[in-house]
């Protein structure tokens, strides 16, 4: 009795926060809606007996990725952003494509048949503990993908540094085509006054 109510509450909040996130004008409000969505997603993971993934969802998604988004949003000019339209010109085309995709997916849903069952029933997972079971699988069956995931993180680290770092001596580059002078270019290498 309690579990369907919890599922419907989570589903309602997830869909509502998703719609809010893509339709709110202020990007910071959108990120906060996505934060609420991620917490409810972690609740659904708990319902599905994936405790480790729920913790990872909260720590990595809500704790790290969304904070990264918030930092980047604070770096760009938000005041300018709020005066402009938040959507591209052909907004109804995109919405109808998404609605058509949703109708197609729901239409295909009854023809879904489940495959063969694996060897980890929920009783075995809850007896061993989800973290231990998943860790055993990750370090034996999925050892090579696990190492490749570490390599991907290293590449992302180096790539993020290279992309975001400003090259020494480079002018604050602006294309002359834009022609908007609301943002005067930063004076290059302004000397700090030593006391």
């Amino acid at each position: 009795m309690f579990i369907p109510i919890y599922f419907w509450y989570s589903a309602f909040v997830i869909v509502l926060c998703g719609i809010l996130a893509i339709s709110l004008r202020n990007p910071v409000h959108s990120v906060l809606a996505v934060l609420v969505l991620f917490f409810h997603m972690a609740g659904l993971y708990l319902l599905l007996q994936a405790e480790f993934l729920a913790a990872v969802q909260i720590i990595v998604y809500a704790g790290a990725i969304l904070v990264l988004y918030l930092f980047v949003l604070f770096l760009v000019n938000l005041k300018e952003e709020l005066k402009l339209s938040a959507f591209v010109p052909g907004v109804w085309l995109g919405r109808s494509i998404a609605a058509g995709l949703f109708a197609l997916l729901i239409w295909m849903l009854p023809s879904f048949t489940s495959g063969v069952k694996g060897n980890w029933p929920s009783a075995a997972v809850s007896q061993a503990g989800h973290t231990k079971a998943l860790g055993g699988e990750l370090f034996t069956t999925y050892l090579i993908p696990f190492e490749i995931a570490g390599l991907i993180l290293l590449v992302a680290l180096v790539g993020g540094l290279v992309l975001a770092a400003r090259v020494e001596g480079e002018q604050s580059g602006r294309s002359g085509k834009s022609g908007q002078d609301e943002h005067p270019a930063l004076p290059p290498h302004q000397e700090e006054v030593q006391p």
Partner: protein
Amino acid sequence: MIPLHWYIGLASALFCIGVCGFLTRRNLIMMLLSAELMLNAVNLNLVAMSYYLESLRGHAFTFFIITVAAAEAAIGLGIAIALYQHRRSVHTDSFTDLKG
């Protein structure tokens, strides 16, 4: 006991919300955030199927997807910062250099 189809329906709804946001938002950062919503929909699908098919394969996939999502956020936001340094804008319709 909740049927598996409910989870798949919820995941498809969230995925389509992400598609809609990706196609309609002008801000590059919001497009990346919509991609995160789509990745979360796939994660929910994988975890639900893994629970109902009594396997841990979907959980392992979800773990790797979260890893790739973190890398994608770092790289994508780095690109957004680099574009903002060059153009003072993160709007998709101001990047039309390759248009003929």
